[in-house]
């Protein structure tokens, strides 16, 4: 028996503050290396280094494990040595305004180009009107107009003379022209006309008809002459404006001689300025749509001339190295960019100046870090991200347009080539779900950086932990920690992962404890964080969340929840379970009872029958059947019907950690040997009767300890745990103290036989050479009972058969 009882030293593996040679973490250098994540770090190095298509990175691991910090740090280190990517601008497409043209310029030149174009427009606003007001231009324009007028006048004059030659006048009517015969310079009166001979009238009418045909031809010619004149005016404008514009644009051409896209654009600007020279005269005060309604110029620039502005969407002028962008809110527009609209006179209008870059534009040529969960939660963000990674170009399309939700006129900006390394940060289940359900995911995110939940608890890592805490304190402006505080955090870190040999890598959670401890240190007026502050932070954190645990304890103490901590009972035992509420878990005992009768070899799990038991719990119960049959009835049918139940549980039961407790209750019920109620039991059992490790061992022990303490510690009380869980023990100091004082006990057992002996006080019993259990042992009683049931069942079968 004594070998199962654990020493207090086994219950809590404390970190010795003496191993730290510092007085406070302020003395420690910054922790540059990632603690214990070698596999993930190697994957990140590989993922960042490889430049092949599809080798984007998915950093998976528990939340708040420092994935983002690690990834960002590595990427920033890599990016710093890489060249700055080019700037990107959108400019007007003069031939197709709804398809703005993208222009790439060397890093930092985007803004310069924008300023140069603004300067050019300013100069054109002076130069073009001056040219159009020049004496030469006006004279040539008048010449062209005069030529047209002269042509018209001559044509009409000729017709007029021809008419006069026939004694006919050409008159202007309200809406046209008409011909009429004259007499002595006046239009002939109708009555006079009637007096004319038929021949005379015939002659007049023939002449008038011929003149009308002539006039028709002449009028039809006029629009053609006007078009010719307009063409001449255009050519004149071209010649005159070209002299003013060409020189100014040539200066820009020299500056951007090595950039073919810019040169092409400047050619287009030159042509457009020539074609729309008048806008430089009209653009002084905005555009008048209706009398009294004037559209103001945008941002100091006059509206019609905005077409020559440059929309710099990506500017790396201030950057050093490749960009590293973390997008906190990865909506579809924030990722791929958007086209904004402006309300004007009740209508929504847009142009290339309202094209806005997304994070992909900003990160192009560098790295984009995204939270996978956020991306997946935003409508169409995941689809949009995959599409740009597959096509390797960023094409801005509004969701409304894509889904045909709105019919506002929008733009189709030219796509921009994409060269970006995307890093997704997410929990493991997201990675596995995406692998399973999205066939494109594996093609696009070929590198997985798997961050472990825990790291080795070694001396080196203890030192690294200390440095990490010191770094964190410096970064967050917190007080430094003394060695005791560091040791206490390391202890709690081991408790968080329930392993004396491991430390938690949930550094975000550790940082929270540190911040709380800093608060308590401040409250206590200390300059440095001590172990007491850490302790207080942990306790306060637990206390804030302990409402349900305390209610359960209270109801147990009041007898509402029936838990015995003394005496003995047949077929009744204290099982242990863990309840998890958000980030807080605690243990509590539950009464488990077993009843047996003759039957057909069934062990009925009442939880399962009413669908409150989970599948793993059911599995544990069914294993009991195998154990009983294998051990006690290898040669005959198990003629037992047993029922097992978690008393006073009204929610679901899951897990097999109570299967050993259920087996003890069953053996007690079969053997009729009572179980000590001063014990609680946890551990799963296999068909061979070996007790196996379970989770939440610390919380379970503490849960029963609290009940016993409330009932009064007698010195007989204790808990049976699987021996495999001893390395997980990081118990609360109160439990450790009670064990040290002999008021409470923790037994580590390997098998059911060890456990039943402790629980009953009777030996379990081993088969002798003839294969029989010794009388008085638990196994003997059980076997006898099952044999009796089998015999009785056999008799019944024979009776029924006869």
């Amino acid at each position, binding site marked *: 028996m004594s070998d199962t009882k654990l020493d207090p030293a086994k219950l809590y593996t404390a970190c010795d503050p003496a191993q730290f040679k510092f007085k406070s973490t302020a003395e420690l250098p910054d922790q540059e290396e990632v603690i214990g994540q070698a596999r993930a770090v190697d994957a990140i190095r590989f993922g960042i280094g490889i430049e092949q298509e599809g080798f984007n990175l998915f950093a998976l691991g528990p939340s708040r494990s420092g994935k983002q910090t690690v990834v960002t740090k590595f990427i920033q280190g890599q990016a710093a040595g890489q060249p700055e990517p080019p700037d990107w601008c959108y400019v007007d497409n003069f031939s197709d305004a709804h398809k703005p043209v993208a222009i790439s310029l060397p890093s930092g030149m985007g803004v310069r180009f924008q300023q140069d174009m603004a300067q050019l427009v300013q100069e054109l606003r002076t130069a073009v009107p001056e040219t159009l007001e020049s004496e030469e231009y006006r004279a040539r324009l008048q010449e062209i107009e005069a030529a047209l007028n002269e042509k018209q006048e001559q044509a009409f004059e000729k017709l007029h003379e021809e008419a006069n030659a026939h004694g006919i006048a050409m008159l*202007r009517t309200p809406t046209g022209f008409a011909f*009429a015969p004259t007499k002595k310079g006046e239009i002939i009166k109708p009555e006079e006309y009637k007096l004319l001979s038929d021949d005379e009238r015939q002659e007049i009418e023939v002449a008038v008809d011929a003149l009308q045909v002539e006039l028709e031809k002449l009028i039809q010619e006029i629009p053609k002459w006007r078009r010719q004149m307009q063409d001449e005016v255009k050519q004149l404008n071209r010649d005159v404006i070209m002299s003013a514009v060409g020189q100014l644009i040539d200066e820009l051409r020299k500056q951007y001689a090595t950039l073919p896209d810019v040169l092409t654009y400047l050619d287009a600007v030159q042509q457009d300025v020539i074609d729309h020279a008048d806008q430089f005269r009209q653009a002084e005060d905005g555009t008048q749509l209706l009398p009294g309604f004037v559209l103001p110029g945008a941002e100091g620039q006059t509206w019609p001339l905005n077409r020559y502005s440059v929309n710099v969407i990506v500017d790396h002028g201030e950057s050093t190295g490749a960009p590293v962008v973390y997008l906190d809110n990865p909506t579809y527009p924030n990722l791929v960019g958007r086209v904004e609209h402006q309300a004007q006179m009740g209508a929504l209008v847009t142009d290339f100046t309202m094209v806005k870059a997304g994070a992909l534009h900003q990160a192009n040529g560098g790295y984009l870090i995204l939270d996978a969960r956020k991306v997946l939660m935003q409508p169409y963000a995941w689809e949009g991200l995959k599409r740009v990674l597959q096509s390797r170009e960023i094409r801005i399309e509004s969701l409304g347009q894509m889904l045909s939700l709105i019919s506002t006129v929008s733009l189709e900006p030219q796509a921009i080539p994409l060269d970006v390394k995307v890093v997704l940060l997410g929990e493991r289940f997201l990675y596995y779900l995406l692998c399973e359900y999205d066939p494109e995911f594996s093609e696009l995110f070929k590198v997985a950086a798997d961050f472990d939940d825990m790291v080795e608890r070694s001396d080196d890592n203890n030192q690294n932990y200390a440095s990490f805490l010191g770094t964190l304190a410096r970064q967050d402006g917190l007080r430094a920690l003394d060695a005791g505080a560091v040791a206490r955090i390391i202890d709690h870190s081991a408790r968080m992962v329930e392993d004396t040999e491991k430390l938690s890598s949930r550094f975000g959670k550790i940082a929270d404890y540190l911040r709380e401890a800093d608060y308590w240190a401040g409250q206590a007026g200390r300059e440095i964080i001590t172990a007491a502050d850490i302790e207080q932070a942990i306790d306060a954190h637990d206390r804030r969340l302990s409402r349900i645990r305390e209610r359960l304890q209270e109801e147990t103490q009041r007898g509402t929840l029936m838990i015995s901590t003394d005496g003995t009972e047949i077929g009744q035992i204290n099982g242990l379970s863990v309840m998890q509420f958000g980030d807080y878990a605690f243990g509590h005992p539950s009464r488990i009872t077993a009843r047996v009768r003759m039957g057909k070899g069934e062990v009925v799990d009442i939880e399962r029958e009413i669908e409150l038991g989970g599948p793993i719990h059911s599995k544990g119960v069914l294993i009991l059947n195998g154990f009983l049959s294998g051990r006690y009835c290898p040669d005959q049918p198990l003629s037992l019907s047993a029922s097992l139940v978690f008393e006073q549980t009204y929610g679901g039961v899951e897990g097999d950690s109570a299967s050993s407790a259920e087996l003890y209750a069953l053996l007690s019920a079969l053997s009729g040997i009572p179980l000590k109620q001063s014990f609680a039991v946890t551990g799963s059992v296999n068909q061979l009767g070996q007790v196996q490790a379970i989770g939440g061992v610390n919380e379970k022990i503490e849960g029963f300890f609290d009940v016993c303490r409330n009932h009064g510690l007698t010195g007989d009380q204790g808990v049976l745990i699987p021996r495999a869980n001893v390395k997980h023990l990081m118990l609360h100091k109160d439990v450790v103290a009670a064990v040290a004082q002999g008021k409470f006990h923790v037994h580590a057992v390997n098998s059911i036989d060890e456990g039943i002996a402790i629980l009953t006080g009777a030996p379990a019993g081993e088969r002798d050479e003839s294969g029989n259990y010794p009388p008085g042992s638990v196994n003997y009683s059980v076997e006898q009972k099952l044999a009796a049931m089998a015999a009785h069942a056999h008799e019944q079968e024979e009776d029924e058969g006869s």
Partner: protein
Amino acid sequence: MKAADRPADPVGGIQRILVALDASRQSNAALEAAAALAETMQAELEGVFVEDIELLHLAELPFSREIGFTSSSRRALDSAAMARSLRVRASQARAMLESVSARHKVVSSFRVTRGNVLTELLAATEEVDMVAIGTGGHRMGYSQQGGSTYSGMVQSCRCSVLVLQDRTAPGGSVVVLFDGSDASMRALELAKSLASSHHDPLVVILLEGSNDAGKLEKLAVRAIGDFSDVQFRDLSMTQLAGVRKILDKLNCGVFLLPRPISRSIDAFSVEKLTEFRCPVMLLP
């Protein structure tokens, strides 16, 4: 503005300005210019629409057809339709006059007469101080009516004539041609009144002939008195061919030309006046 609101002392003694209306683009432009001048001179506007008797005669001829000015389509004419068309044009002209005069805050009246256009208009000028007439019809050169009306008015009208072009460049200065004659003294007086009433600059072109420039300037200075915003420019008879360019450079808003001078100089012939870019006021 009602008649009761008439100004007591119109500028330069010009109280009534007649404008011939036919609701065409040219006559509307003339109306705009005349209204602006009337506002400046604090004068009244009198619009007159003449139903051309010759058009009515034309419409009664059995073979008469009209060729649309823009469509070039041929339509039959009849007297009823022609009369109706003229009435519509008259009502359009009236509406235009009322609108323009209200905008310029000038008193206006409107009447319709029937007869020969030139005869009716000349008759109407008997009761006014100035007539505004557009050169549009003349410059088209194809209409017996428009061209002859303009020429006839300029040549026969005994009152002042304001010659208005289709498109006049906006200008600010009042320019007057001065040769020291009585007519030019009256023109200078009117020019001074116009310039001072709207604070526009006054430019006096001294036409050297029997008097030299110095003497002319002394005469002009004496006539102008204390008006300060004035400049003088000499012009010899040989330079008269370039007077249009000079006026353009001076940013001329209105050019006051004494008729006795214009009659003897080819640069101011009826034909040449149509080529000016600013309104020309022919003064008796």
